[in-house]
């Protein structure tokens, strides 16, 4: 299977940052995801939305990166929202017990609404 070269894009929406990982999160290039989140955390952002619409697969290395982001946000009492996840991704996160450490929304706009209003 040919994997897509991993890349990360991001944008700011109010007091939240939205991160768009793209490709298979399975090697050291996934560190860019941690770095991108770290940049926003460094600027004082405590709300991060990770939109997984272009990431179908994640392996143990990718999980480790995600753990790092969860840990970094936990340290500043921040929030991580995951959206647009494939069933495979949801099942993996659920099986590992990660769901209790993040907020999961079907789409990005739901997460942003929640972060803005505190309501679903």
């Amino acid at each position, binding site marked *: 299977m040919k994997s897509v070269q991993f890349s990360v894009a991001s944008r700011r929406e109010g007091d939240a940052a939205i991160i768009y990982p793209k490709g298979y999160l*399975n090697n050291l290039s996934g560190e860019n995801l941690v770095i991108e989140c770290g940049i926003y955390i460094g600027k004082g952002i405590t709300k991060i939305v990770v939109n997984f619409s272009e990431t179908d697969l994640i*392996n143990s*290395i990718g*999980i*480790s*990166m995600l*753990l790092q982001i*969860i*840990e970094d946000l936990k340290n500043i009492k921040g929030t991580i929202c995951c959206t647009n996840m494939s069933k495979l991704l949801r099942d993996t996160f659920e099986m590992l*017990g990660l769901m209790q450490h993040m907020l999961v929304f079907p789409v990005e706009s739901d997460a942003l609404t929640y972060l803005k209003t505190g309501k679903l």
Partner: protein
Amino acid sequence: MSTELKKALYNISALADLGQAITSENDFHEKIQSVLYVITGTFLANKGALLFYDKPTKKLNTLTQKGFAPDDLNRLNPEELMSLGRNEPYLIGGDPVLAVAGAEILTPLWVRDEFIGALLLSGKLTVGPYTLEDLELLNVIANQIAIALNNHSLFMDLSDKLEENRRLYEEMRHIYHGTLQAFAAAIDAKDAYTKNHSHRVAKYSAAIARELGWDEHEIEGMYVAGYLHDVGKLAISNTLLNKVTPFTPEEREEIRKHSTLSHSITAKIKFPWKNVEDMVWHHHERLDGRGYPEALAQESLSDGVRILSLADSFDAMTSQRPYRKKMDVQSAIAELRKNLESQFDHKVMLVFCKVLDKEIKGELPEPDILPHLDRDSDLSVISALLEGIIVELSRP
């Protein structure tokens, strides 16, 4: 699919990830980083460290880690770790000796009877304890990492030894060349008129060999033969070597012995290069068989002999001798040209002209012949002469 089955599949894929990380073409540091990510991702540990045991210093060095304080890792005593089960995960609990802030599980890494290092993990993000399945998986992972680290260590040891051998070899080569130069200086010191002759012949011969496309080892052999071609002169009397008046037939015979003497001396040396002794023995042979000491001709003369013969003659002609003045460069080249086929080889002459012409035109970064030629030489005239000979000798 049950959660247990999903977890089992995840663990299997984590082992595959580990294999891929270990066998990847990344450099060692990247490999080790990937390995640690695989492990922390597999067990949901937010802290992890891979430590390598350095036998000479008997200390644990941190290869990679995330989340731990470096000073805490440095406090770990390898002796204490060695007493634990080999590749068996050990739950630190309240153990005061092995306590590292934030660490929950420690696995000493072993390959056969060799202590390799340790793997340290924090508790899980999900807070739950390490299960029996986790410990079994960690044991499998520890075995794989230990082998990978051991292989790397062996490879590094070999690389270090190779590097050391290379250094020693270079040192030996340096000494070898120093000895040869001392020999050459001794030869040339016997005859004030041939000062640096051996050095120049070595340089010219190597330049021709290089232009002929010889490999570096062969060129070095050619260079050494150039240095030693007149070593037999050490056994010839100074009076005879420095005689100003023409030699008598007996004296000429005596002088001619030097090439056989050179062979006798060099034949006792076990050179790493082929045919050095043959080249010094026959550097006064001629293609027409009228040379000495064996009157060999044509096919009996190797390329090395032909190169040495031309380089020696060219330098002899362009150097001052007690019984005659030195020739200018153009005349010496013309003399070589005149004696083609009878004395000098066509191919070697062509290559000699090409390399000298390139040196004059500045096409070679480190000229070997030009710096030794008469400074009053008109290089444009020499170049024109060489071009003419090159065209002539290049014709089919």
